[in-house]
């Protein structure tokens, strides 16, 4: 299986400051990868470099030819002078039919009545789902989410992660997400990459939570516990638990220099 996006020795300098140095990264079709790191660790820069928005100072980035990216930005600053309904926004950059637009709203759990609302009048959670709905309309091979759950409360965050997981299961799209929320990482992540200018450690969520590098980077606030939102398929109700994983684990994490 060839990677959708692959980077080797990726180094990015912004304003004379080296934000990323020597990062190796890859994401395969259908894979969910969470990039975890404190503020200023270069997470957003990594996403932007992988999408081709910022040019690397050195290193190599390869994207699958004609890769369809569904990008969900961290936030959308909408100028008050730009009138924009949800329906109109869904038709950017590619015009979609009403039926497609309604299906995308349905899929992301939004009422169709929202179509006529102004984008600027939405709540944070609604806007987040509208951004996701728009990204899905491009039939993406990979969804890229930048701090997608920022501003959501815990149940909202859990529901959003469940939605992402379901969408991955349905469409087979890979998911690349970035989070600074060290307490909560989507349990469905196939891989967690801890970033702090360079890749500190990576592996499955459980493996990473026991890595010494992870503890060194995030250990203070959480005593090294990485809480996971789990997707309980057998539960019929909308409730999520966080599970601390302090128990020792037989697997050794994959260490990076």
């Amino acid at each position, binding site marked *: 299986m060839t990677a959708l996006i692959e980077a080797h020795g990726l180094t990015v300098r912004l304003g004379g400051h080296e934000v990323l140095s020597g990062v190796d990264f890859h994401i395969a079709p259908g894979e969910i990868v969470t990039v975890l790191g404190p503020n200023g660790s270069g997470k957003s820069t990594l996403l932007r470099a992988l999408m081709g928005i910022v040019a690397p100072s050195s290193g190599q980035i390869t994207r699958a030819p004609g890769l369809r990216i569904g*990008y969900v930005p961290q936030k959308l600053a909408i100028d008050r002078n730009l*009138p924009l309904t949800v329906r*109109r926004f869904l038709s950017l950059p590619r015009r979609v039919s009403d039926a497609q637009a309604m299906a995308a709203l349905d899929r992301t759990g939004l009422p169709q009545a929202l179509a006529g609302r102004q984008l600027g009048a939405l709540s944070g959670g609604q806007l987040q789902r509208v951004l996701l709905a728009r990204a899905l309309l491009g039939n993406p091979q990979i969804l890229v989410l930048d701090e997608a759950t920022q501003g959501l409360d815990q149940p909202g965050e859990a529901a959003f992660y469940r939605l992402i997981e379901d969408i991955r299961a349905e469409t087979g799209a890979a998911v690349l997400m970035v989070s600074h929320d060290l307490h909560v990482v989507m349990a469905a992540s196939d891989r967690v990459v801890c970033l702090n200018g360079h890749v500190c450690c990576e592996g499955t969520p459980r493996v990473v939570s026991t890595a010494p590098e992870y503890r060194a980077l995030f250990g203070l606030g959480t005593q090294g516990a990485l809480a996971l939102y789990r997707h309980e398929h057998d539960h019929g109700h909308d409730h999520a638990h966080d599970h601390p994983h302090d128990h020792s684990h037989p697997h050794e994490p994959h260490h990076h220099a």
Partner: protein
Amino acid sequence: MLDDFLTRAALAGTGVAVAAGPLGSFVVWRRMAYFGDATSHAAILGVALALALGLPVIAGTTLVALAMAGTVSALAGRGWAMDTTLGVLAHSALAFGLVAVSFLPGVRVDLSAFLFGDILAVGRADLAFIWLGALAVAVLLAWRWQALLTSTLNEDLACSAGLHPGRERLVLTLSLAIVVAVALKVVGALLIAALLIVPAAAARSLARTPEAMAIGATLIAILATFGGLGLSITHDTPAGPSIIAAAAVLFALLLALSAVRRGQLSP
């Protein structure tokens, strides 16, 4: 029909409005107001240059407006503090233009015609240029509309979809230079930016989509042209400023109207 100066004036104003509506909307959405000022003020320098070199005025203004718009766009791309930079550029372009005009030997230039427009003196050739330029801009903007709108909303979003925000910025830069060149005769260098911003701002209060705002801005600009010309004919006021004044009155009326509407909607 084109023999009547008033008909030609109305047609000239309508032509400019066709381009100014959608372009003005982008100027408002992207907060490029000062950008419009700098480019249109530079047109005076273009006038001086054209007269000195014996070129047609429209060629001089297009070239200098293009150079100014390109400079500003490049500076913006490098992250300069735009507010101050644009202020410096806008005012110095105007000052240098006025100084340059005074140096022209033996040429008697009616400066106020370039500063405030001379729409009542629009000839057939002017009219042809105005419509040609305005239609070119309208077609260009219509062609790039989806990409322009996406880039305006969020450049990263546009990039991730394979668009090139830099290229779309260039489209707006070029459009602005053309509109400045063709609108110079209509409202003059000092008021071109107003013709871009005031109708668009007026249309904002009633519009629910970007397209409605752009079309609304064009209609309001046409209405303002007719209103301004009427005022000019009946009360002998300067035509260019009268058009902008009419647009400003429409802005105030529409703002009040939307406030009343909103008041009725909310309990």
